């Protein structure tokens, strides 16, 4: 019998930060994750974490405005105000836990510049900031004796009388399925990058959390907002941090021109990510690229500087491409990187289902709107991880006891057994590849009605094949083959919501850039798209819209 006050799905920074908060409040908490916490994708955040520290002359309104402008005014300003005003304490607290942030001359935390901001307010650990924070939070989890269901895969949220009461999960090490009861569940299960191909995302970023909440009746918001990072390595999609440009790297086309001069004369390479990715794609499409890439040039920074401040980038470049960045520029291209959209929550991480919370990349609070600023994702995880934990603790005070229902376990066991019993069919990987390539093709850096309809057609084809894939491995112990099948089902849900949102939004805003409607339309589309799973609706998705919250910054044209 597994029971906890609060159960957190996901052991990345958002999940562990939430767990620390719940533990401090004295409630019983556990983390459940399909990978060991230190394997989480928070590791991949390289460049840093933003915070406006007031004792350094910065102010939180400045950061809030840069975030809102970066978001192309689609962020809810009340949420951004919360994030920006709590940012300083969130970062300082991570430092006090043990994160080895880079220091300035005075021994206090030092900064580097990052995209979409004129103030250097990004705190960092070399080019491994996410990893350094994740490992320190893991240290804290050991200190607190945190209960972790390592390598357990959640297949369903238990919803009873309209409230969330726990999960059904598979213990991957034994293959056994269990109910884990909880008075509140926080989904902090990361993004859905594998819905696209290629992607910078880890193979584990399969939208599990998004789909679990979606199936439980929570809307997914602004899912069409897909971030293409400007600097990813060709073919593999491996990320080269924005820190490179933050520290002064140039982007060059085939003739050696710094093409950002034409697009963003003021911010140059540090315009917001959607702007830079479009500029690159234009260079490539108009024949000024090199084999589908532009060049990221760090040579003028010097070897010592590169190795000291950007060591991980040099490691990746040398080992994956055989290129020494001190000697040669690196070919890069825009690559799918982050999903701004996600599980709709309020500023406390609460969803429309009582007892169900979300935080981190899978959530949409919304602070990133139509385009996230670099180094705001780590901040999002720390701030809203903590807040969701704190609020869940308040919520459970009014929850009398645990659910007694066991129906979900039985029905999930039957569903999964049926999957295992299927006759030989298509391979999961084949279907995922077809889905993901179709998504990148249709919902890319540039999109139009035809491309998005193409993605929809492709998805229909994929869905028609979903009943026909089979699981080759019939064993119980560490059956990843089965997990990949279940992940694919989650990914298809996410893909549907992405396409539905994209087809709904009849304007260009941030990352959603339509070549057939190139202007932003504040009159009609200063709105969120809300995708509900609804089997009676066309393509199983019902789309609604809601107003964006504006507090003190009226939308203006975005110029970098």
């Amino acid at each position, binding site marked *: 019998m597994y029971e906890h006050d609060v159960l957190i799905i996901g052991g990345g920074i958002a999940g562990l930060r939430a767990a620390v908060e719940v533990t401090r409040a004295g409630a019983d908490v556990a983390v459940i994750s399909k990978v*060991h916490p230190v*394997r*989480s994708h928070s*590791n991949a955040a390289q460049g840093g974490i933003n915070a406006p520290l007031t004792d350094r002359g910065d102010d939180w309104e400045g950061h809030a405005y840069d975030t809102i402008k970066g978001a192309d005014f689609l962020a809810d300003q009340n949420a951004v105000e919360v994030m920006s005003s709590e940012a300083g304490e969130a970062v300082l607290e991570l430092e006090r836990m*043990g994160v080895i942030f880079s220091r300035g*001359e005075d021994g206090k935390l030092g900064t580097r510049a990052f995209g979409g901001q004129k103030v250097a307010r990004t705190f960092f650990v070399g080019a491994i900031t996410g*990893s350094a924070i994740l490992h320190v939070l893991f240290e804290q989890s050991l*200190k607190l004796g945190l209960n972790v269901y390592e390598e357990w895969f959640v297949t369903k949220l238990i919803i009873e009388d309209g409230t969330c009461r726990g999960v059904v999960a598979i213990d991957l090490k034994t293959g056994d399925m269990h109910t884990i009861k909880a008075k509140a569940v926080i989904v902090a299960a990361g993004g859905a990058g594998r819905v696209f191909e290629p992607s910078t995302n880890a193979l584990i970023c399969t939208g599990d959390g998004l789909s679990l909440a979606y199936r439980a009746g929570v809307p997914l918001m602004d899912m069409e907002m897909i971030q293409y990072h400007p600097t990813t390595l060709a073919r593999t999609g491996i990320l080269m941090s924005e820190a490179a440009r933050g520290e002064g790297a140039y982007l060059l086309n085939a003739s050696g021109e710094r093409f950002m001069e034409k697009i963003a004369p003021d911010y140059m390479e540090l315009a917001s990510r959607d702007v830079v990715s479009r500029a690159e794609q234009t260079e490539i499409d108009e024949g000024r690229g090199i084999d589908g890439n532009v060049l990221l040039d760090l040579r003028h920074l010097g070897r010592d500087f590169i190795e000291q401040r950007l060591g991980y980038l040099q490691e990746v470049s040398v080992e994956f491409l055989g290129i020494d960045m001190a000697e040669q520029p690196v070919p890069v291209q825009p690559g799918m990187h982050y999903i701004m959209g996600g599980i709709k929550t309020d500023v406390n991480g609460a969803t429309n289902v009582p007892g169900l919370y979300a935080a981190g990349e899978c959530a949409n609070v919304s602070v990133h709107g139509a385009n996230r600023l670099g180094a705001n994702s780590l901040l999002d995880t720390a701030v809203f991880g903590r807040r969701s934990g704190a609020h869940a603790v308040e919520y459970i005070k009014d929850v009398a006891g645990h659910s007694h229902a066991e129906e979900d376990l039985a029905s999930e066991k039957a569903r999964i057994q049926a999957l295992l019993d299927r006759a030989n069919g298509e391979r999961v990987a084949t279907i995922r590849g077809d889905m993901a390539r179709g998504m990148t093709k249709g919902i890319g850096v540039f999109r139009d009605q035809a491309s998005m309809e193409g993605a929809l057609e492709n998805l229909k084809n994929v869905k028609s094949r979903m009943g026909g894939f089979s699981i*080759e491995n019939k064993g119980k112990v560490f059956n990843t083959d089965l997990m990949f099948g279940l992940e694919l089902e989650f990914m298809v849900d996410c893909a549907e919501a992405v396409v539905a949102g994209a087809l709904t939004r009849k304007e260009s805003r941030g990352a959603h850039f339509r070549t057939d409607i190139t202007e932003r339309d504040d009159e009609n589309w200063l709105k969120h798209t809300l995708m509900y799973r609804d089997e009676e609706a066309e393509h199983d998705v019902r789309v609604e819209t809601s107003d964006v919250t504006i507090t003190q910054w009226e939308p203006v044209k975005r110029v970098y």
Partner: protein
Amino acid sequence: MPDTMNVKLQVKRFDPADSGGKTWWQEYEVDVHPDSTVLDSLIEVREQEDGTLALRCACRASICGSCGMKVNGNAKLVCKTRVVDVAPNGEQLTIEPMGNQHVVRDLVISLDTFFNQINRVQPFLQPSFVPEAEYTTSNESMENLLTSMNCIMCGCCVSDCTVLEVDANFIGPAALAKAWRFTEDPRDSKRDERLKALNDEDGGMWDCTRCMKCVEVCPKGVAPMDRIMELREAAIEAGNTNTSGYRHTESFYNSVKKNGRLDETRLAIDSAGWTNIPRLLDLAPIGIAAMRKGKLPPLMPHKSEDHKKVKDLYKSVEDES
């Protein structure tokens, strides 16, 4: 350059469900992009040839630490191991699960060994006070810690550690590198306690035999053995001299200084401690066995002909420090 490359793999499989556990070798052959890594090849196998093959992997960019396994006998992070570097002429690659850790299935090992070791070093910051904002400290002191914070806990060092192979109680290279991260952190207040514990502990810092294997296989430049040597120096400086490890070091130093060569008999007795009767009795059978084989070192050491030169060397080094 051709579009694809043929990769031949020989993978050690393990199925725990098959009558208590069955191990076998399985051969695969896949065509992949010429730049592919060993991981790319294994994923191709898993996705297109054999869905039953179990392995862990996630980031594909050498930051999550999931995909440690043995390639041709050495632990590697396979996402950063390019096939052309380990099989330049299309040789068959031998892939096995990491060593010194229990195998769960195929290439998946239990994480318990690794994280139990980490847990032995109180792996969290223990400061003496909490500042209102941040701790003020030099950038150099933080950058120094990057060496250890670069550790992604992949377990390659534990896999290939030659001490763990014979002594499962050794705390292991990763945990000691983790401990170093706290003894060197100016914000931590438990430096002396940590050093003493790791000095006194059975299986602690003195059990490393300096074979260098962890330095060789670490994919992130943590160089655990170098961290262990620094821990030892720090422990001695902090006054922890009542260990066989310290006595071994001291005896080594003195014997070479005096004779210009190592007095192995004295080294053994010094290390055990002259009054440590049980340990000395333990040594007796080894001595007798060595004598029978004619391998016992001379009881009185011969002096090296050049021992004066060695003394001069000692003097110049000691004068400098």
